[in-house]
């Protein structure tokens, strides 16, 4: 119960941060050349100044900036994200349509990166400075240096073009309408390459952190105590070292949540996935500022939720946190 109260307190403290972001981005977007109406007019193929004035008045874009900001925040509290001029739908519904692929991709990539990062980090730390460690560390370094979009393209070349094992893009086969298990398998096939691509850099990061964390914990006093009690090395690692070494990894999930969302922009573009990331890109290119603001809001919200979950997990793992209150 205290864990929930603690995490809840941190969550409440993020609300001002959220507002800070929204206000900041809103004000920033005021500097953008052209606004929603200009984009709409471009879509409509031009129009005269009178139409522009009417449209601006209709959307409340001719009010003063503080008033616009107030309007926007007030609508936001009621979860009304405005109207997308490009898609002709409320921003909220556009975002909701695009959310599932992104969430799926992020969950898959995170799981992949965390699991294998943990595994290889432990292996590297156990055989530190011997060949498994060197091999794993070099691989980690190379993965870290690889631009994700380039890896995606090369993966498409190898697996889709030459080997023809996996599809080159898209979320599912548009032609065939499938349901149930077949649909799941189809989506899974489409997500293999994107998951690998997005997860690669994070795999490298988790690997390095896990290795360093293991090495640090292995040097701590209570590990010496465990050995002095007569524990064999494997049990020392599993019963004493692992849980302590996991703590920085868990924190890292929260810290990297934002970066992963950012990475999905690029990966979704490479693989033509209909997700939130690609929506962000399209809004920038098409100057759909309402949608962009909506995406900023949803991204920040996602990061905050992930951090909340991480706080809960961390407090569950480490009893000292609750004590410090």
């Amino acid at each position: 119960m205290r864990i929930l109260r603690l995490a809840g307190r941190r969550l409440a403290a993020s609300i001002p941060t959220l507002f800070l972001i929204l206000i900041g981005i809103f004000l920033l977007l005021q500097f953008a050349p052209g606004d929603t109406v200009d984009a709409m007019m471009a879509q409509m193929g031009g129009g005269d100044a009178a139409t522009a004035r009417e449209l601006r008045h209709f959307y409340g874009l001719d009010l003063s900036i503080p008033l616009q900001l107030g309007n926007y925040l007030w609508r936001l509290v009621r979860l009304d994200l405005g109207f997308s001029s490009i898609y002709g739908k409320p921003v909220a519904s556009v975002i909701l349509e695009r959310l599932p692929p992104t969430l799926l991709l992020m969950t898959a990539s995170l799981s992949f990166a965390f699991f294998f990062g943990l595994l290889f980090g432990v292996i590297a730390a156990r055989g530190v400075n011997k060949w498994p460690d060197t091999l794993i560390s070099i691989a980690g370094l190379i993965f870290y240096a690889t631009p994700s979009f380039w890896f995606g393209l090369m993966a498409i070349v190898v697996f889709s073009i030459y080997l023809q094992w996996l599809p080159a893009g898209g979320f599912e086969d548009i032609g065939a309408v499938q349901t149930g298990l077949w649909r799941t398998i189809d989506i899974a096939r489409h997500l293999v390459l994107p998951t690998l691509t997005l997860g690669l850099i994070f795999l490298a990061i988790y690997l390095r952190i896990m290795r360093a964390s293991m090495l640090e914990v292995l040097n701590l006093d209570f590990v010496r105590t465990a050995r002095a009690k007569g524990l064999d090395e494997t049990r020392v690692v599993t019963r004493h070292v692992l849980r302590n070494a996991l703590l920085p990894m868990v924190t890292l999930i929260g810290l990297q949540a934002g970066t992963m969302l950012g990475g999905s922009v690029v990966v979704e573009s490479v693989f033509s996935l209909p997700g939130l990331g690609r929506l962000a890109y399209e809004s920038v290119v098409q100057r759909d500022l309402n949608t962009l603001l909506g995406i900023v809001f949803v991204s920040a919200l996602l990061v905050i939720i992930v951090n909340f979950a991480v706080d809960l997990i961390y407090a569950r793992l480490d009893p000292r946190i609750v004590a410090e209150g």
Partner: protein
Amino acid sequence: MDALKRYFRSPAAVVGLVLLLIVVAMAVSAGWIYPREPLALAGRPLIWPFSNPRFLLGTDNSGRDIAAQIFYGARISLLIGGVATAIAIAIGVLIGAFAGFYGGWVDNVLMRITEAFQTLPNFVLLLVLVAVFGSTLTTVTIAVGVVSWPAPARLTRAEFLSLRNREFVQAGRTLGMRDIQLILGEILPNALPPVIVYASVVMAVAILLESALAFLRLSDPNVASWGNLIGLGRDVLRVQWYVSAIPGIAILLTVLAVSLVGQGLNDALNPRLKAR
């Protein structure tokens, strides 16, 4: 200096340094080896690498020399990487130092701002900045720097928080030193080394960020950058995949070099951690 000797004892660090020097050499010598404008049409489009002695690495979709673009691209990557990193470190150290030293409400306010920057995915913020301010080389560089300052700020703040309670800082206070003397003279010289090492990470990320922007055609299209070339190569990926492959390898090697040098510096300056 035994830090220098320690650096050269690590084979990885030496490899990194050599690679980095090669990239720098490419950037510097680009004007002599390829005196013509790199984005000018040079020959037939889509010539394969190693098939024509005039175009060692082939030509791209428009018939421009890929090797020339690689050499000139080194300039762009190093420039953007270096300047953006400098901006990020400067802002980050400033904010982190004041937050860590003064604590209290100063720390609270500065950390809220830092948190705001970190909660928003940095690439999304980059997109917003590019949407607002445009895609010239200058704006992209500044944008990348602005997006990257939170991490050095947190690092600096952590260093200041731990150092400000050390007894030699308290001794300085009892001797009558002012706050600014304590910050600049006592704490900063001790806090900077890990931040400087972290600069290599920032630079690696900066180069990757800019190339991602370029790939999405959101960076400056008038310069020969590696990211631009990869984006171009996407259109001909099926057959002439080398147009995308080659600049990607260049990015990989450069970022790898920067990371290795950073790691080598870290190990050289922190010999106690050699047990790793």
